[in-house]
């Protein structure tokens, strides 16, 4: 695994996170405990993996960290400037790639020059500039995933959360993705990659396995 000298405080510290879901009708209510005290941390300049079987709660933990789901218990510390790349691209089908960049640049409060430079850099890095004025509904699955990832990176976040970020990527883009991640890690970004299978273990600072609702460092 990659070793990185890290002295800064964690950019992500999750401690004892629990989350349960209820399902079924009121007279046959079932409570499913997905997270039972999950703890992990990511420091600046670390590229951390989170693995686990299908249904182990990886995406649930990611959604709790991002703020899409409320946690039942536990503490969470994360920076305001975070980037989130969800497993399923959360995009507007009828809007163009350019319009997506504009909306997210406004959300991140980037000035026009910074937003344009960052957008152009990401389009070049991931090689999909020619689709700038295409609507999302006209893009292939892989290109949607590139846009999904680009929107998470547009503002150069302190913490980058990636949930199965390379599904749909071809081999070349997959390798480019890892290069991008390593460059950003080297620049001090903290990165958490969630996957059911991590083939690139040597690139990671640390790996957690989510098992029985808890994270175990491997």
């Amino acid at each position, binding site marked *: 695994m990659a070793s990185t000298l890290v002295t800064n405080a964690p950019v992500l510290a999750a401690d004892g996170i629990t989350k349960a879901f209820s399902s079924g009708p009121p007279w046959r209510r079932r409570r499913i405990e997905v997270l039972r005290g999950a703890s992990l941390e990511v420091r600046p300049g670390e590229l951390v993996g989170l693995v686990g079987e299908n249904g182990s709660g990886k995406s649930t933990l990611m959604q709790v960290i991002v703020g899409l789901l409320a946690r039942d218990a536990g503490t969470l510390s994360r920076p305001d400037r975070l980037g989130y790349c*969800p497993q399923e691209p959360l995009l507007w089908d009828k809007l163009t790639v350019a*319009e997506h960049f504009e909306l997210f640049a406004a959300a991140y409060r980037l000035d026009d020059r910074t937003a344009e430079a960052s957008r152009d850099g990401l389009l070049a890095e991931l090689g999909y500039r020619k689709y700038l004025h295409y609507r999302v509904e006209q893009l292939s699955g892989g290109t949607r995933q590139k846009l999904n990832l680009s929107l998470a990176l547009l503002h150069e976040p302190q913490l980058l959360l990636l949930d199965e970020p390379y599904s749909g990527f071809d081999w070349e883009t997959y390798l480019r993705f890892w290069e991008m991640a390593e460059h950003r890690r080297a620049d001090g970004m903290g990165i958490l990659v969630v996957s059911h299978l991590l083939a690139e273990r040597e690139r990671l600072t640390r790996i957690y396995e989510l098992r029985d609702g808890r994270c175990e460092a491997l």
Partner: protein
Amino acid sequence: MSRTSVFAREQLRAPFTLALLVAIPALFVISAAGVLSDFATALGGSLAGDAAVALSAGWAAAFISGALGFFQAASSRGADRRLVLAGLGPARVASSRIAASVLLAFVAAGTAFVALILRVGVAHPLHAAVAVLAFALLYLAVGVLLGSVISAPLEGSLLVIFVFLLDAFSGPGMSGSPPPWSVSQKAADVLIAAGSGVGSPTGDWIKLALVTITALVAAFCVFVAAARSRA
């Protein structure tokens, strides 16, 4: 480029949506007035003639606006929430999303009103226009409110239709005594009066404005509550 115009453009890029925005209100006004009168007679109401035609314009605008409001909020919920978490905040996303829906509600109401004017002469066209718009805005609020908490298209659209049917068949003119919770009661009162050639008193206008604003504020609050960060 404002967020509202982007969100409105998103809807207008669906040609079928545009066609429905124009076709449903026009067809409803042309074909539904007679049916409304028959139902009113069966339910013990007094709706008939030009008042029925006028009310059909309101219901036409309401139906298409409710459906649009629901699908705007429900179908874009995931991406909207991502934008909220990116830093835009739930209030700004909600206001842009609802403002875009309001623009489309204006189109639906405008089409319904034009169909009404072409079908019958209305003695108080301005009153009728405002009442039809109020119908559209009320149901837009119903649609956005339901779309903010229900993402399943079948369940959500059935609920919008359920509210619509309950309201339509128990509202003014359709039954002897409309229930006080009827969503569109005040809009229907003003529209039936305009269709019958009678102006509405100031009190009715104030109540109509209050009901419409309350409905839109409720939709905004539910959207914000559903979209806010849980971190």
